[in-house]
């Protein structure tokens, strides 16, 4: 028997893949060939050692880490990537529009800069955008809004107050934060129940505001109090809560804001 064929038979036999006829053939070969018997014994010993080595269990937090990272990326992706790619791709399909694309991008940046400097970035329609200060809500009128729920989060070096306000069919989440640099305030909601109609900050700050799918986050970059008004439009059944999570350099706190409007008299 050729060496190659002998090797195949030995490996198949040890792997449990040899047919009865092949096993018999190997048995005959081994009986008559001392060198082959030695090689087979040596190969069998390697199998033995490898089979005795144990399979390890993966760390218990592996799946949790993966799912947490996926959850985070999915929520941030649509706004951070999607719209820019869509607009860019639409313009890039026609090279003649290259300059128009640059102009449009520049104009958009200018509008965004203006909005941030003036503290106004209303994205939806039907919501007025007058200036405001302190805890006063603009245009909608304080009298038109009442507080449904609130949560105060005390941090080591600051505090964050989250309030849910409602007036008629309008809902506004108001976040007032005085927190150390690097703190991230995340408001998340069920995108099937809510959509964001507008966002307003006061005063204009260098804080990073990121709007994602089902969440908005503010990363504090500037010391001092800042306030954010998140104008929400209801898309689904009433009562879906908002979740607030604050990741500060000293830890993480979280809570929920009720959004169900209490019945009159209750």
């Amino acid at each position: 028997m050729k060496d190659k064929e002998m090797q195949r038979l030995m490996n198949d036999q040890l792997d449990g893949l040899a047919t009865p006829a092949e096993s018999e053939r190997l048995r005959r070969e081994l009986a008559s060939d001392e060198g082959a018997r030695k090689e087979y014994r040596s190969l069998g010993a390697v199998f033995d050692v490898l089979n005795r080595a144990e399979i390890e269990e993966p760390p218990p937090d592996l799946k949790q880490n993966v799912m947490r990272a996926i959850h985070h990326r999915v929520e941030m992706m649509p706004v951070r990537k999607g719209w820019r790619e869509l607009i860019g791709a639409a313009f890039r399909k026609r090279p003649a529009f290259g300059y128009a694309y640059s102009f449009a991008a520049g104009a958009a940046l200018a509008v965004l800069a203006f909005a941030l400097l003036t503290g106004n970035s209303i994205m939806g329609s039907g919501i007025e955008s007058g200036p405001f200060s302190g805890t006063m809500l603009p245009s909608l009128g304080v009298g038109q809004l009442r507080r449904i729920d609130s949560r105060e989060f005390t941090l080591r070096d600051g505090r964050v107050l989250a309030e849910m306000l409602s007036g008629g069919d309008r809902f506004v989440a108001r976040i007032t934060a005085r927190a150390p640099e690097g703190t991230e305030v995340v408001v998340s909601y069920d995108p099937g129940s809510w959509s964001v109609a507008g966002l307003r900050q006061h005063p204009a700050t260098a804080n990073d505001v990121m709007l994602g799918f089902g969440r908005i986050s503010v990363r504090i970059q500037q010391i001092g109090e800042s306030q954010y008004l998140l104008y929400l439009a209801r898309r689904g059944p009433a009562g879906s809560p908002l979740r607030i999570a604050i990741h500060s350099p000293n830890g993480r706190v979280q809570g929920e804001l009720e959004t169900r409007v209490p019945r009159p008299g209750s």
Partner: protein
Amino acid sequence: MPSFRERGGGFPDQPLPRMFVVMVEHEEDGLLERCLEGDGGAFGQLVDRYQRVLFNVSLRMVGNREDARDITQTVFLKAYENLGKFDRRHRFFSWVYRIMINETLNHLNRARRTEPLDETMASEQCGPDEDCARHRLHDSVQSALMELSPDYRQVIILRHFAQLSYQEMSSVLEVPEKTVKSRLHTARQLLGGIFSKSGIALS
């Protein structure tokens, strides 16, 4: 898994038992469909299914639990992000394995450039004698594997630790079955030499 000796000395007559379920195609198609529709829970089920095999492959390739965990996590994230590019005519495991092996080889290259491979799998503390012997065997096998080139190490790991069939190995390694067998034979011979040299008890 029963040892070679426990399986009847020289002539085992059953295929190796499968410890990892890695190819359940019909069910997997449904899960992939749901993942592409944005169902994170479906991807969680794929993680459940493959984390053990991928972690073990990675662990045996790099020899360090922490690195193996990081690599496995990165692989799942990359798979999720690129799921839209996955060609459904191929097997999911083959695709994810390619991602895994690229990550692992990149890691080994980086490690080679920066520092010699440590022996973090070495068990410094042993309990009872039986535990100690098991740990020693574990460490010795790992050290021996690390002496093989990545190509040979891969085939040993896929066959003996991930327990893939030759056909599955051919699919994930993208080489003919014949090449898998010949590479496996050479790798086993090399391991035999390393075991003998390092005094690992060969029965």
